[in-house]
């Protein structure tokens, strides 16, 4: 059942897991909770636009977004297998999960790069 390309997907999963664990909580808290509730003011449009549009930021953000999707794909795939006992749909689930991650990465590339 183990396939030879598992290590490849696991590397993407691991990289995404580590990066998101480091970066996402702070970003999510500041952007979606602290700012809307008025706890912090947040940067001005000009500054945020400058930072996000900087080529280096774009590349880093693209990597973070893409790896987030692959992290999800790998974990969610095995949650469906183990949690919901869907082992008989092995290939279909793998195609949907990794396909979703690839599609998400393409959208991110289109928007960011």
């Amino acid at each position, binding site marked *: 059942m183990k396939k030879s390309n598992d290590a490849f997907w696991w590397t993407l999963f691991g990289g995404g897991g580590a990066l998101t664990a480091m970066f996402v909580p702070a970003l999510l808290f500041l952007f*979606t909770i602290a700012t809307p509730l008025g706890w912090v003011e947040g940067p001005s449009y000009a500054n945020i636009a400058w930072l996000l549009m900087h080529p280096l930021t774009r590349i880093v953000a693209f990597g973070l977004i893409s790896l987030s999707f692959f992290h999800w794909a790998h974990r969610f795939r095995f949650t469906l297998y183990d949690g919901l006992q869907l082992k008989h749909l092995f290939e279909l689930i793998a195609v949907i999960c990794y396909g979703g991650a690839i599609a998400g990465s393409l959208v991110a590339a289109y928007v960011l790069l």
Partner: protein
Amino acid sequence: MESKTGYALHHPKWQRDAKPIFWWVKRWVYIGFIFRELTSVAVAYSAILMIILYRSVQSGPEAYAQMLECLSHPVMLVINVLALGAVLYHSITWFNLSPKAMVVRLGDWRVPDLMIAGGNYAGWFLISAVIAAAYILG
């Protein structure tokens, strides 16, 4: 000397006990495991938010203001609080498991688990502090 290997026409069925779908609600450890795996949904959600953020910034100041407005809707706030809880759980479980995933050896000395996890936590706090400082100082 003719020996025939007896191939079965069909693959014999393995003896397996059918497991109910909600096998994991019986013990807290299992619930924790499933919840940890489901934090990946919040990670993917955050990635989608980041794309939306980029899109709104590219569209100009009005679109950006509109997106911030949208984020202050109560429904969005509830979703995002749940998502934040999930990604925090993801970070903590990830750092706690990191010593198991990467065993660091310096010569004969194996770096203790606590130091590897501690290093991860230190990195996390540092990165979060830098992000917060950059964000607040604008």
